[in-house]
């Protein structure tokens, strides 16, 4: 019963597993800047990065491209690969928080901006510092609570 791992779309795309963690580090710094300066433009810029990561994939974001072109060539060790979907899911969650934060700023609710940015920052920081897997912890709970019991 390994239908999850055997699904062709899961087996299809593999990326360097170090890329998303590198991107999470930059994301955390950008979100920290947004939180400290209360500058909505910083959050909008990060929101665009999340949008690319959630739709096209984390390897196509500016941070992913920096990793691919500048960081990866300097790494010597063999690259561990991972399925693209877990980091893609994390980017979608980040996008959701960014949208809430941007909405908060536009509606002049600075608390909403701060809380949403704080959550996005917390997730990015956990990913960067602890290799936290957002999809592992959140996805099943999300499905469990959003689908009805039969």
């Amino acid at each position, binding site marked *: 019963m390994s239908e999850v791992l055997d699904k062709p779309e899961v087996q299809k795309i593999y990326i360097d597993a170090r890329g998303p963690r590198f991107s999470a580090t930059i994301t955390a710094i950008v979100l920290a800047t947004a*939180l400290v*300066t209360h500058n909505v433009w910083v959050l909008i810029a990060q929101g665009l990065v999340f949008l690319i990561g959630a739709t096209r994939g984390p390897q196509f974001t500016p941070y992913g491209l920096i990793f691919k072109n500048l960081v990866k060539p300097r790494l010597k060790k063999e690259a561990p690969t991972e399925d693209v979907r*877990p980091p893609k899911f994390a980017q979608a969650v980040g996008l959701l928080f960014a949208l809430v934060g941007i909405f908060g700023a536009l509606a002049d609710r600075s608390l909403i901006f701060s809380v949403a940015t704080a959550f996005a920052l917390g997730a990015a920081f956990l990913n960067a510092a602890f290799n936290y897997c957002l999809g592992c912890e959140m996805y099943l709970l999300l499905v469990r609570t959003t689908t009805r019991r039969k």
Partner: protein
Amino acid sequence: MKTYLPLAVVLVLASAYGFWWKGTRGAIRSNKAIPGHRLSAAVLGEELGSRATMVQFSSAFCTPCRATHALLSQMVIPMEDVKHIHIDAESHLELVRTLDIRSTPTTLFINKDGIEVGRAAGTPKREQVLAALAAIN
């Protein structure tokens, strides 16, 4: 207006949670088992091992699920009385709710009667798995 207080709060809370999370991943804990619930071949879709079975719940958005699957499926090869059953959590939501599976990968250690004796969230270490299996008769 610049303020560093929210940033400090986020970093402290996230670090505390991160250390807790890191420390509990992979640990096989008997107190998390659902008491009295019996898993059968009919529910799992495969025969149980004659002594013990490791039932692994995985999902698509989960990187360590793959590593856990590789470890456990490789470990049971020389074991005649232990089986590794892999379940897609998303397509077994009723079972996931009954067993209160919250994150993936979660691996249940069950005895020959289908009673859970412990579970591990995250990828367990080889020695932890061996110890847990040795405790099941």
